[in-house]
């Protein structure tokens, strides 16, 4: 069953001509960690706000935990934990008081409140700070509190807008391990991020959003492979380079560029395994000696830049 489903979601903000979202259709099955990628202004937060019933789409529909967010918002929100990009708190209340308030909104069992709240605070690393007023919190602490708020009701779906933002490396590692934990638990996570390296490491699938349009949805590796090619490099340390082989290499499918510097041959392109084998074969056939051969894997950032640059 799909935890998130959108059907041609479109949003035009009042007074603006350009739509923020255009016909966004995606689905996130249960158990997946879905990463939402896009440059600033792509529409990620807009999408998330629509899913969280904070924003009404101009046209289209969205379902969360199987419930229509426009027709059944209250029920839908019962199944979701939300961490916004800029969480707002009441500066005069403590972290624990906030959680208590949210818990009451979820209708959580009052008899187990205290223990549960402490557990959640511990999980996000705010065990000691829970009783302090939020106005004494650092940015990182506020984000941890927001995360605690998302985890509070033990939801089947978590929607996290920039979860690693403002966290130190330790915090980011924590988020990563938390996400893995959640996935093992059978939860579904929908997160948006700028940190492509982080996304790559944790997400089952990734959707790339650009100017309101969903360009591509796939596993991170597939996307990298498909679009990162221009930046991928095969570095070969050679002796006895034969210039004529360079043209042959250039003619190979998947090869974008070839260059030689000193004794290092660099082949650029969408270098799948077959291409690499062909390169080696051609070199050997021409009598070029290979001392070492190393493939620099394309990464998501490359793919991302390639995809979005192409569309500009």
């Amino acid at each position, binding site marked *: 069953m799909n935890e998130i489903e959108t059907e041609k979601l479109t949003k035009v903000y009042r007074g603006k001509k350009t739509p923020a979202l255009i016909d966004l259709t995606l689905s996130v099955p249960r158990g997946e960690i879905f990463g939402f990628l896009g440059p600033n202004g792509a529409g990620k937060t807009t999408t998330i*706000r629509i899913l969280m019933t*904070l924003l*009404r789409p101009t046209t289209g529909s969205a379902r969360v935990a199987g419930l229509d967010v426009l027709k059944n918002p209250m029920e839908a929100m019962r199944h979701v934990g939300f961490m916004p990009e800029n969480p*707002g708190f*009441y500066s005069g209340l403590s972290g624990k008081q906030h959680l208590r308030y949210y818990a009451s909104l979820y209708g959580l069992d009052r008899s187990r409140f205290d223990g549960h709240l402490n557990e959640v605070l511990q999980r996000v690393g705010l065990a000691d700070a829970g009783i302090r007023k939020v106005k004494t919190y650092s940015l990182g602490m506020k984000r941890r509190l927001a995360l605690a*708020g998302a985890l509070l009701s033990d939801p089947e779906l978590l929607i996290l807008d920039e979860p690693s933002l403002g966290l130190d490396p330790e915090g980011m590692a924590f988020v990563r391990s938390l996400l893995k934990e959640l996935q093992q638990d059978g939860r579904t996570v929908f997160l948006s991020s700028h940190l492509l390296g982080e996304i790559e490491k944790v997400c089952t699938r990734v959707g790339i959003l650009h100017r309101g349009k969903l360009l591509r949805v796939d596993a991170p590796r597939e996307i990298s492979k498909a679009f990162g090619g221009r930046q991928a490099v095969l570095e070969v340390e050679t002796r006895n380079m034969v210039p004529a082989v360079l043209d042959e290499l250039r003619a190979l499918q998947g090869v974008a560029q070839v260059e030689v510097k000193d004794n290092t041959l660099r082949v650029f392109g969408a270098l799948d395994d077959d291409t690499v084998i062909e390169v080696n074969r051609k070199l050997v056939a021409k009598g070029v000696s290979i001392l070492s051969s190393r493939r620099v894997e394309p990464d998501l950032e490359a793919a991302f830049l390639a995809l979005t640059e192409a569309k500009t």
Partner: protein
Amino acid sequence: MGSPRLLIIAGLLALAVLAGTYALLPSSGGFSGPPAQIPYGFNYYGGLNSSKPGLAILVASPTGNHLQGVEVRLVNITGPILTGEGNYPVLETHLTDSSGWAQFGDLQNLYPDSRLGVILASRQGIIASVLTGSRNQPGSLVTDGGVLAIGTVQLSGASGGTIISLGFADQAGQPQSGADVYYWRLDLGAQLPSPLDAAAPPDGWNQHRVGATDASGYFIHSDPLGPGQYIIRASKGAFNYITVTTVYSSTSSLNSGPDSVLAFSGLFFIPLILPLMALILSYDAIAREKTEGSLDMLLSKPVTRTGVAFGKLAGAFGSMVFPVVAVLLAAVALIWATTLQAPTSGFIASFLVEAIFLLLAYTLLFLAISSLARSLGTALLISLLFFLLFSIFWGVATALIAGLFAPVGSVAWFQIATTMSLSSPTGVYQQLLSQSIQGLNAIGFIGSLGGSAEQQPLIALIVAGLLWLTAPLVLFLYALKYRIAEG
């Protein structure tokens, strides 16, 4: 939820209301109710030849008891009679007898060539006076056989009205019992018949008989009478006397009566401080959360927008209503403790309900503004503008605009102004308040004007009040459900 704010503004309210109430309380520690003793003075001339001037006093209570043993003084008034000024030389002192009368006779011989007067020992003010000796002008003061002295007592409080009583004696100062008494009412400002002693109502005097004098020549009409000109006649046999007394519209001064003291804060402090209170505590209820991001945290939970709206309303209104009611009840307690009289319970109840209405209407208005405004600063600015407009300028504006259509002070002007003022919650409040104070007839700052015939019908006020509660509420709900979600 801004509890320092609440404390400050509640403190301000308490200070204003209680200090204002205290300032208005009579310093003698009690309200001047109807006087305990009403004197009726008679000057007479012992027969048609005016040779025996005399003075008499009847003293009775407001409820008609003839008061025995009241000290009455005969004084020599030299020079101009100035009521209550100076200490006139006391010539004689008598006590009223069992019928309430004290008589001073043989004045011509005892005090010739003098102007004499009678006063009560307990208070200043010449009740009646007479001339003796060569200053006596026979013939000019002869009446048609009887002498009539009228006493009026103005009642304050919720019922209002005036009680008229009288004493009737003959030309020798002898009380006339069993004389028929007649009251004939004409409107204020109506032309009086002339000559007065030949006057008779169109349907005849018999239709206007209200009773007869008692053994002391005393009559009291104990039902309070409304405004008007009252032609009063007493007659027995050959003795006949007609006089006229006027009862004006009751414009009781604000100092009279516990109801009025409480009403004072309703007229001056409540319409200013309560909306200000509502503003201070509600203007940022939604706007601040929008700006600071906590609204997203709230709305992304399993809550309905309607639930959030009523939660905000309950929070804002609930935190204000208790201090307000407490302060107003404290004012009532203050009045009671100082004067041992409390405002009538019906008035207290309507006063509280009206204040709560005002508070609720403005809370809803500012909540609606808070949810529609794009930023915290805008919310504050718009709220302030509405506060200033409705609470302060609207009264002047409606009076001025009404003045374009009708002469100022006329009935039409008043009606236009009061209809227009319904377009602010403060206007509705002020009119509701003035209608629940009978006899006060003050509409906000416009002042005392006319009687109930010119006021808005109560049903119009109630409808306007309900509109001022529902319209902002609907706007508030709409803003939370749709406007905020539009982005």
